[in-house]
């Protein structure tokens, strides 16, 4: 292959402001070596011999939907100044592709269990559904105004959100693997974790550099993360199912470990993101979220 001058690994000196975040992560290499469909490596017949139980399948289903929700995540990222950063968008293009096939592998496991039917979802209540549908429509409108006022700092919010979500879902994959005796299932999860590895590495390196160089970005990130639902995509799910996901796959020790990693970033001490997500928040808090987020953004802008 004709090698491009590896333009994404800069060899020149930068002053702090022009430092390329996550310079050690070569996006072009990531794109070149992306993992596509896993179907050929799956032995679905193994599930006929040794099927997974209903509770596990429900969690696999839940994780498949989270991994599939990339377009919704891209939507909130691309209406902001983050879309200008060609290195990040190049990463996200491949990230979405790999996650599509991770979800596809999980769905293949579900399809190998013809008896599996997702439990009747209670879904969100009618009022909640209406609020969410409205929020869904207005979010890109709100975000395209507010985030463009904030400018470059919002990129750090997105990369930090990415790393927290990646660590959370990664821990869930590991717990599923460790909790299962099915060797085929364990082997598949191991492979998928291998794919997810680079997603975490990119977001973590980006976050480290961005939060380190801009206290303003750290402040904004802190405020926004506190108002986020974890894991990403869970907002569209039955809250009871999300609660079962936490209970089954994210024990307190795991939560504490992830929270500690997040809080090691500059400006994020004491956030307790997942601890709060697991313990759940009263509805009134959630109702105030959209308002609070806008107010926080505006305050941050004024300062």
């Amino acid at each position: 292959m004709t090698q491009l001058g590896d333009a994404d690994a800069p060899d020149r000196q930068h002053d702090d402001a022009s430092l390329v975040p996550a310079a050690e992560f070569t996006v072009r290499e990531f794109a070149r070596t992306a993992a596509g469909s896993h179907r050929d490596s799956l032995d679905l017949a193994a599930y006929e011999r040794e099927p997974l139980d209903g509770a596990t399948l429900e969690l696999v289903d839940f994780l498949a939907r989270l991994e599939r929700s990339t377009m919704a995540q891209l939507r909130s990222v691309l209406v902001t100044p983050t879309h200008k950063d060609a290195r990040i968008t190049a990463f996200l293009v491949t990230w979405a592709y790999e996650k599509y096939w991770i979800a596809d592998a999980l769905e293949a496991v579900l399809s190998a269990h013809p008896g599996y039917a997702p439990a009747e979802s209670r879904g969100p209540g009618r009022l909640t559904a209406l609020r969410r549908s409205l929020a869904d429509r207005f979010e890109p409108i709100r975000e395209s105004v507010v985030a463009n006022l904030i400018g470059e700092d919002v990129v750090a919010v997105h990369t930090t959100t990415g790393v927290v979500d990646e660590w959370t879902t990664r821990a869930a994959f590991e717990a599923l693997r460790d909790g299962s005796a099915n060797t085929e299932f364990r082997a598949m999860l191991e492979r998928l974790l291998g794919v997810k590895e680079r997603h975490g590495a990119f977001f973590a390196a980006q976050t480290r550099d961005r939060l380190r160089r801009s206290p303003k970005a750290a402040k904004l990130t802190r405020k926004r993360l506190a108002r986020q639902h974890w894991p990403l995509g869970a907002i569209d799910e039955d809250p009871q199912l999300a609660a079962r996901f936490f209970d089954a796959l994210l024990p307190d020790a795991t939560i504490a470990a992830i929270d500690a990693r997040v809080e090691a970033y500059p400006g994020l001490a004491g956030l307790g993101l997942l601890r709060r997500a697991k313990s759940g928040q009263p509805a009134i808090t959630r109702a105030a979220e959209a308002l609070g987020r806008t107010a926080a953004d505006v305050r941050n802008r004024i300062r």
Partner: protein
Amino acid sequence: MAFDIDQYTETSEGVGWDDLDFDAFKTHPLPEQTLRSLRYMCDVEYHTVCYLRDLLVTPSHKERDVSAFMTMWNREEFWHGEALAAVLGMHGITVDFDQLKATRLKLGWRDKIAPLKQAIAGNLIGDDFVAVHMSWGAANEWSAVAAYRRLAKLEDHPALSPLLKRIAQQETRHVAFYASQARERLAKSKVAQKLTRLALSKAWGPVGSSISSDDDVKHVMGHLFGSEEGVKEVARIDANIAKLPGMEGLTIVGDSLRKRGVVAA
């Protein structure tokens, strides 16, 4: 004709050029005007992720098939950018992420309000607005296929022409998706037809015209479509668009070139 999304996702791949003899660019370097057109096309391909943004603000991203397509389409277009960047690289022209970022930063306030406009229209008008995006996408992809095939023919180069034909081949699958989506959505709604006709006739411009200088647009369109054969190709694109429900008689591609003086009025 229905679009088979599973077949598409399973066979979607980044365009390859390993097997092409890129050393041919050393013995047969491309002329200046071709490099300028390739640079334009390269920028457009890399910019696809920004068009994706416009699509995502409509409710269509929640549909499984649409989001699967967007995932693969976006990646294929990124690789078209990489392939063209590799060709440019053989001529000492480096396209890197920092330059692309600088280009996007230069777009200024228009680019900032674009998602706002799209979000308002997409969410307030709703499903009918999706038809506009799909028809717009079909027009763009038809144009892209024609542009790559024209350049492959004009140059008749041992490395460039096969590469451009491969890219055009992938673009034909994008055409199939957008056109089938557009047809289906337009056929269902007269309002969607009216909106789409209005948007295409009032706002459509050649692919890349929203991110490039007028000089570059004129150069590329003149280079590819300025000849008699090019004009025929443009007429074929317009005929395809006019076949979409409610788009009879539209000649938006020809009009946009006449307006720019690329072809005779």
